[in-house]
């Protein structure tokens, strides 16, 4: 059992000295005060872009939307053409300060209306269905050169596909405090898990991240399990910590508003209020590091341009994507507005896409995180050379 003891000792030593924790045999590098941070927020269920950023001056908008149109006097002013949903007060504040921008007609290049396939594409980064089994953030971590190395974490017990793959990743969610260094059991189990290619690395990473979380949350207000706002707080604590991860993923669900979606208030408004709190929570929690942060809010696809028979909307194509953060360059809309009039809708039903979602993601990983352009074009987003960078974003 000497081998076992030495492994446990190594684990404790690492914790005790506050060294970079060893995950998967490689020293996982860490964010310092100047290194870029990236937060990806996935809104699952197909978030309705026409409610997030209502095109108030599009002549077709009000008629298509009927009772679920955001009233112009309730929408928050954004620019001459678009408003923001009344619940997105913090995102509007950031937008007016040059720290948030919208892309009103974004879609993945493969147009499908299955939530689950579309989420798989958004997370895998593939240009065709079932193109890859790993996530594009995992491949981003792999593609970063040593001097720019970063760790990624999902604020959830499980890892979403976007993070899965051969590179080490962390997940963490609020729960009862646990001190791995003081746990004899944790040490014993590391030995048992060692030969297991799936459970072994995951368990080691879990202990390491729990140790980190223990220090971060020791003197801070407790976090609730399953609360989106507290997930943002948790993510911010990790990202702001010296030596912490630099990339975080948060999933929000409940955006599949087929019925009674509401307008300024109601079901969707409640979800957007949560989203706005998440972005505000990141800004607050990151403090000075917000200046190095980019946040991207994306959904798998948009919803039908017209209201359906049940006060909701069905599966569509393009939707709104939001980028925010102190690392952003000020500027207007990302991508063009296709219009909602006769002949302008995609398949005569949906907002038509004008911007490939991968271009936003790719710009952030290349120009913000520093991933090599060639790797971004070929490995992180396979066969995506045609999806160029967006100038003036970060």
């Amino acid at each position, binding site marked *: 059992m000497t081998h076992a003891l030495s492994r446990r000792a190594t684990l404790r030593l690492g914790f005790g000295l506050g060294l970079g924790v060893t995950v998967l045999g490689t020293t996982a590098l860490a964010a310092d005060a100047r290194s870029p941070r990236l937060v990806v927020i996935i809104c699952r269920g197909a978030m309705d872009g026409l409610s997030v950023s209502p095109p108030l001056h599009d002549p077709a908008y009000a008629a298509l939307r009927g009772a679920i149109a955001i009233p112009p006097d309730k929408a928050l002013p954004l620019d001459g053409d678009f408003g923001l949903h009344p619940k997105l007060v913090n995102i509007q504040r950031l937008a007016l300060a040059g720290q948030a921008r919208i892309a009103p007609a974004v879609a993945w290049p493969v147009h499908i209306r299955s939530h689950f396939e579309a989420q798989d594409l958004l997370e895998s980064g593939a240009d065709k269905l079932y193109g890859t089994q790993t996530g594009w953030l995992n491949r981003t971590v792999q593609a970063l050169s040593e001097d720019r190395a970063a760790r990624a974490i999902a604020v959830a017990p499980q890892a979403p596909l976007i993070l899965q793959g051969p590179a080490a990743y962390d997940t963490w*969610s609020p729960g009862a405090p646990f001190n791995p260094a003081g746990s004899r059991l944790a040490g*014993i189990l590391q030995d048992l898990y060692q030969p297991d290619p799936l459970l072994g690395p995951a368990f080691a990473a*879990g202990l390491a991240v729990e140790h980190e979380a223990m220090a971060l949350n020791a003197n801070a207000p407790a976090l609730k399990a399953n609360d989106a706002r507290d997930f943002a707080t948790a993510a911010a604590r990790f990202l702001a910590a010296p030596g912490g991860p630099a990339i975080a993923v948060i999933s929000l669900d409940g955006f599949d508003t087929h019925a009674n979606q509401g307008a300024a208030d109601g079901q969707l408004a409640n979800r957007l209020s949560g989203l706005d709190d998440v972005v505000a929570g990141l800004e607050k929690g990151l403090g000075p590091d917000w200046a190095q942060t980019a946040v991207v809010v994306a959904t798998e696809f948009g919803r039908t341009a017209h209201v359906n028979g049940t006060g909701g909307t069905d599966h569509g194509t393009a939707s709104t994507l939001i980028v925010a953060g102190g690392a952003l360059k000020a500027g207007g809309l990302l991508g063009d507005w296709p219009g909602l009039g006769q002949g302008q809708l995609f398949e005569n039903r949906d907002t038509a896409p004008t911007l490939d979602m991968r271009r936003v993601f790719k710009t952030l990983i290349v120009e913000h995180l520093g991933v090599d352009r060639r790797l971004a074009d070929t490995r992180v987003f396979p066969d995506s050379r045609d999806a160029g960078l967006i100038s003036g974003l970060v």
Partner: protein
Amino acid sequence: MTLPPRDTLAAIAATRFGLGARPGEIARITADPQGWLRAQVRPEAVPIPLNPVGLPFPDSRARLVDFAAFKAAEKAAGADTDRRRTSGEMFRQGIAAELLGRTSIATTTDAPFAERWALFWSNHFTVSTRKSQELDALAASFEREAIRPHVFGRFETLLLASSRHPAMILYLDQQSSIGPNSKAGLRRTAGLNENLAREIMELHTLGVSAGYTQADVTEFARVLTGWSVGRREQPGETAGSFMYRPNLHEPGTRTVFGQTYPPGDEDQALRVLADLAASGKTATHLATKLATHFVSDTPDPRLVRRLASAYHDSRGDLSVVARTLIEAPEAWTDTAAKVKTPYELLVSAYRAVDQAPRDYGREVNGPLNLLGQRPLSAPQPNGWSDRATDWAAPDALVKRLQWAQGFAASYANQVDPVQLATDALGSRLRPLTLATLQHAESRKEALAVLLMSPEFQRR
């Protein structure tokens, strides 16, 4: 392909096909592990949850009556926060009692393969309490009424029971989908809601890559118009019951996935569902999901073909499919490729110590909430993931460890951990794990080690 030795087969039967061995189970079935599984393939092996005095729980109609009473009491309480809080107590206790009963079936049944089979179909036809409080009332009765009675019958019957159940209709927003040319549609601006139509094709039957189009989804949504539920506020209607509303039905001939359907009111959808159930695409989709659930995230294509053929040749008889799975050599590989879901882990732990949880909130709901799988609350209509990699994440394993410590503290004094490990895992118990258990400093530590060991976490 040769099968592993019989003691390995018994361990696999109890852990991969079953829900984890109870003491004595592996020894009892070693003579004929496959025969033990085959004997479970019968509808009576899938019981419905019963209350502590052995009576059935309220049906969906009665659940909605209780729910309405709760909402009325909550409204009457006005600003009185204490009264508001207590107004739902009875209602919530009723649901918790059923979910405890459901867990007790899993932890004590002698037919754990049949229960796993039922849980698979319950997840296949996901109805989630995350949608609304009304679905809190209906998710458990949905499983009891629409799923459990039919899991060893014909798939078409199961599909029909699910698609017509008020819980599914409400979950996927079918109740007020209106044909634009129906009587109601011509009177006002209203229209289709495609949600149920799409998910039946994508998730429940054909599978997403079957080759159907948006036009097929829309056509099927037209076919389904009129399928609705009774409303409490309407005189003569019963909430919690399926109701066909002819005024909402889109008249006319429809074409769905290459088949033409003459006008047929309520029955038009029955004919479409029958054809969807009979499709070869459905056979392959279901076969892939079953092989993935039972054996591996990347199942052997021969196993998928075997199951799909059984489905096709038996015209969707799920008992034939189940027996084919049991006979298939590819299902008995000695690699335990699957990681237990949180519910499976919790159930198998209770089975290992031969106990059943008594307090739903503290022993079941609370832990499963932290472990990321609150019962009947999948985040999306595709249900809980069935991929090992989705469950084996860093934080998830630490949460499992914390839960295992608490569980061991409660149950370790009553057990001999080494004997327990042999009983729970049979020949799947590794020498290293056994040695670790023998050297543990306490029963509590030993039991926690067993529950967290890779061979207990996997199946």
